[in-house]
């Protein structure tokens, strides 16, 4: 019988490690993308706009 005991635990920790690396990466990137800067609060006003119609807002278009 093959023992999967440790491989399964390593799998769990490896998956957690991947998620942790992703979290660190995107956390650092959020600084570059301006979420912590002067315009970081704009998005909370924009979400109140009604987006039911196309081109209803010109807010920070990509």
């Amino acid at each position: 019988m093959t023992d999967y005991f440790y491989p399964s635990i390593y799998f769990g920790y490896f998956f957690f490690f991947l998620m942790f690396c992703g979290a660190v990466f995107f956390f650092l990137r959020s600084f570059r993308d301006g979420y912590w800067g002067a315009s970081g609060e704009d998005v909370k006003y924009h979400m109140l706009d009604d987006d039911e119609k196309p081109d209803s807002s010109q807010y920070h278009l990509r």
Partner: protein
Amino acid sequence: MSAISAAQPEQMSVAAKSAAADSIHQDTTAKLFLLSSITYFFIVGVIALMIAAKFVWPGLMGNSPFLTYGRLRPLHVNGMLFGWLLAADMGLTYYLVPRLCGVKLWSEKLGIATAVLWNGIILGAVVTLLAGMNQGFEYGELILPLDVAVVVAWVMFGTNIFMTIATRKYEQMYVSLWYTMGCILWTAFVYLTGNFAVLFTSGVNQANLNWMYVHNAVGLIFTPIGLSLAYYFIPKSANAPLHSHKLSMVGFWSLAFVYVWTGAHHMIHGPISQWLQTIAIVFSVMLIIPVWAVVYNFFATMKGQWHQMRDNIPLKFLMSGVVFYLLTCFQGPMHSLRSVNAIVSKTDWIPGHAHMAVLGAFSFFAIAGAYYILPRLYRTKLYSDALANWSYWLFMIGGLGFFVTLWLGGLWQGWQWNNPAIPFIDTVVALTPVWIVRFFSGILMFGGIAAFLYNVMATVIGAKDNPQAAA
């Protein structure tokens, strides 16, 4: 029935048709998920009442194997978690993500296929769990083929949401989108570990992995998707901007870095390493940071808006849910302390705590979302504001009766268990009055579910007769 606009029916019909034609959103997926999940809420509510009745009258349903506690309980848990709450959250996510991105859902067909598959999974769960097919893990009871189907459905859901966000019109993403993306990624990690990796372990390690899954199912699945809804619907319902988007980012990232380590607090005083128990305790207490960041933000958003609580039904559910969220997230870290854990662990306190999280906080957010969007989806008015208010008070009074009774009963039970002079069976008999109150509290909560379902269905069915472009 709520007041219909004084405008002529013909004018309303024209306005509704015009609004429908102008909208870029189809919303078929959101409708399918919401209507099916609310129906499951009602059906599984019946199962919940049957279980509560069996606590008081154990011989009530005879000897039928289909009605034993061992089969009904996993059906109740899985039905409420995946049939009602997660499905409702997914439906609401299909609504809010395209709107926050300013684009259509990436693929409505993929969304409809996801809804069909999800309903197939829930029906499969009902059949297999009632037939006694159960893997024996808490929250991981579904058989392997259904687990695989859940993974497929989640990949379909995640692909649709991520592609919608990738094609978004606006550069910066509102915090609800962050939580939604976090939920999708974390669920992959949590679900695969709890339903597949756990199969290849045994003994204490298996229990540890299982409890990591159980706690992160709440903390990394239902919490982020629930908070995503709250962050969207509280400002929308109150028509007031969020207090601080930066603070919401603090809450998101602290949740991301803290939550995953807390699962082992379910095994305090158990046969796991002391260092692992201590890590779980430390990270559990650190949860106060994201919780306070979230709750303060919501309360500060409501500054000057509290008067709306009088007649704004979605806001009533939302802010009550925030209070329950605060309470349940204060209880959680306290349970993890060794001294408190020695009393409350494994007692009726824990279902009281768990129900406050899943029903009091996250289901309240989902119900609020449903009340908010259904009239908009069907371009009509809610069938009855009064009935919605009744559903709120039935949920609130029934829920409080349920939570508080189980906390008190759990404390009592824990003190008895810590006294070796008391025979175990005496501690069971002593709790009968607690379970009677729980049963009648359950009836009140079920009344809330029934009122909610009736209101939703009457709104949907009556939409053609009362068309109106929702405000």
